């Protein structure tokens, strides 16, 4: 092995040296990055896609942007970081090169194994991750996870959709048939059918988180089949909402507000409201609390009431009746008296999934393992 290795090196090194020297000459005249005062708290955000995707990443970037305005805080961001060794290196670069002590890697796939691996190497850095499941005793102490019950907002969006539709057919463009997505489809359907028992929801799975062409096809297909309100659960709802608007259909947004791209048909939308979560975390960190000491909880969850999620402001097409019904449901969520999944509830094959009298509250682990579609949904939970 040694001689071919030596051979490569002897062949590579001369050209590499020229390459290096060339760069070194260029860099010789340059040294101008700003050195920051050491007292600022530096916080890093990592996104899996672009920050202006009208979707998942934009929701996080908007939350992060509110932090940038806080005194004594310096924000560092990196977008389009894939869920590979790339995110491990981005985290390490932020820690080693820029001296960050608080990181928010926001994509689900960053958690296992990447955050868990890097967190072990840097026990004094705190990692806050969106959507992961923290396992006490198994995962490093400097890791915490947060997530919101966005299906509460989907339930209310369903009420608005159910009272707006003329055809009683609603369309749902979904990425993958996983628990989180099925839960949104079911909550949206239950909301719609709570005010309009004739409403049905046709769900169309595209198979992946970001497939703009398929998303447009799915939206057109749903509208062709008679659906007049379209909503979705994909990484960037931009294409779905735009297509629905151009076809003259109503739309209900997801992740962030898409009202700007559908001024006529946009009804409302289920949005993340991460600024409250981020401000709470930063206040804790600035007060000297830490995950390691157990002063910040490792699992942080909430819904409408806790300010993790919100609804987009109602669009011009929403009737007074729909607004009133939506506000009523919202008040129940805010009071903590609303339970979406209560018996008796059947799936769309007629099987009873929530027995009569049972109430599955938001923290119920059975909700996270959801693998069925509720009565009123047209589609298969297998995709």
């Amino acid at each position: 092995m040694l001689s071919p290795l030596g051979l490569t090196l002897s062949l590579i090194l001369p050209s590499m040296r020229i390459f290096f020297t060339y760069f070194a000459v260029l860099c010789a005249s340059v040294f101008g990055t700003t050195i920051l005062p050491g007292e600022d708290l530096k916080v890093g955000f990592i996104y899996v896609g672009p920050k202006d995707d009208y979707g998942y990443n934009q929701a996080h970037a908007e939350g992060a942007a509110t932090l940038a305005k806080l005194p004594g805080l310096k924000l560092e961001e990196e977008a389009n970081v894939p869920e590979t060794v790339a995110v491990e290196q981005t985290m390490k670069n932020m820690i080693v090169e820029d001296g960050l002590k608080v990181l928010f890697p926001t994509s689900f796939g960053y958690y296992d194994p990447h955050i868990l691996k890097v967190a072990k190497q840097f026990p004094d850095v705190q990692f806050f991750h969106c959507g992961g499941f923290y396992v006490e005793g198994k995962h490093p102490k400097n890791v915490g996870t947060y997530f919101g019950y966005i299906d509460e907002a989907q339930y209310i969006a369903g009420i608005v959709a159910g009272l707006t539709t003329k055809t009683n057919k609603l369309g749902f463009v979904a990425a993958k048939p996983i628990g989180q997505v099925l839960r949104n489809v079911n909550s949206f359907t239950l909301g719609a059918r709570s005010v309009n028992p004739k409403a049905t929801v046709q769900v169309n799975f595209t198979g992946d988180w970001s497939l703009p062409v398929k998303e447009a096809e799915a939206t057109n297909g749903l509208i062709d089949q008679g659906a007049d309100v379209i909503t979705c659960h994909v990484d960037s709802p931009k294409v779905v909402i735009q297509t629905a608007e151009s076809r003259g259909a109503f739309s209900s947004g997801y992740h962030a507000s898409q009202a700007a791209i559908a001024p006529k048909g946009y009804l409302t939308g289920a949005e993340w409201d991460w600024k409250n979560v981020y401000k709470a975390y930063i206040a804790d960190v600035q007060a000297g609390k830490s995950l390691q000491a157990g002063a910040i909880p490792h699992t942080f969850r909430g819904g409408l009431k806790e300010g993790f999620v919100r609804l987009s402001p109602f669009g011009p097409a929403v009737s007074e009746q729909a607004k009133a019904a939506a506000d009523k449901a919202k008040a129940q969520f805010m009071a903590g008296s609303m339970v979406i999944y209560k018996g008796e509830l059947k799936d769309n094959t007629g099987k009873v999934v929530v027995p009569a009298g049972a109430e599955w509250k938001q923290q119920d682990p059975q909700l996270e393992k959801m693998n069925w579609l509720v009565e009123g949904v047209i589609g298969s939970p297998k995709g």
Partner: protein
Amino acid sequence: MALKIPSPLTPAPPAEQVPESGRPTVAARTYLTPEGWAHLESLLIPLGAIVISLLVFGIFCACLGANPLAVYGSIYRAAFGSWYAFQNTLLRAAPLMLCSLCTAIPFRLGLIVIGNEGALVVGGLCATLLGLQLPTAAPLAAQVAMAAAGMAAGGLWIAAVGALRQFRGVNETISSLLLNYVAIALLNQAINTWIRDPESINKASSFALTDEQMLPTLGGTNLHPGILFGLVACVLMWFLVQKTTFGFQIRAVGGNVRAARLAGLPVARITLVTCFLAGIWPGLAGMVEVAAVHGRANESLNAWYGNSGILVAFLARHNPLGCVLISILLGGLIESGGILQRSHHLPDATVLVFQGFVFLAILFSESLHGQGQWFGKFGWGRRGRRNG
């Protein structure tokens, strides 16, 4: 399977005329100039291309309100400026080196194979499948078995492309492209059903390998063995193609398949073996991804390393040693993408723009090789001289 390949003994047609078969021709124009000029040319042209792309990129940065010199400095520091930075670059380069061979080797045979991504995915999948069967085996034995499984799977995957070409006349570029989709579908099927860990609720994944099965980092560094595999693979393949009888046979088939047949070379066997040898490296890259990075198989295996490998192979002019250099350059560029966002507040697509400039400049500069009267035709592969 009639292949119209010009004989290497007659002058090749001008570069603009692509032969009907799609097989690349071997430029046979030669100049009786000192080799020194040729060496200089093969160094000066790519360097000149990089300088030009840097200048254009500097204008781009200035338009976005960043100081171009400071940006150059940051790219250098993030990619090559320290041992820490260079390790990161090497980590990024490792899968690219392995994957680029999948295009570079069959090219010498006259085949354009772009099934790198598929070979990586099946390699990673098969390594996982085997690893999950061996939870109690000795770690080293399990690792060797997984590597062998990944290599065999990747090799057979690309050998299938060669077989389709050889025996059924199916265009290898199309078949390898389509096999990528088959491989990804196979991976999705496996991680969603056969080997799905029920704990992986929101991101379908296989069961995890044990900690002992994971590849260790190379002593005292952040590097995983993938970088070593990449270097060794590129050197081995360079040696095979340039210095062995079998390599000569490959080049003979690539030069003129009819002449090779007339000379009694077993073309079918050479094609299949070469394709197998090309496929084992992305297969190994898949095994490294599973056993050094992810610890399980999931859709993150399909991270475009294979497709980037195609680019690397073409930029390296299908020379395995060139693949090492270009992989490191590309790895460095990707690695520097973060600092452009963090320190200069440039958009996340900036590094892609830079890559685009660099690669366009290098590809355009290809047409300059051998153009000057005082420039000898040399090329990294030394193909011109061999035929002269």
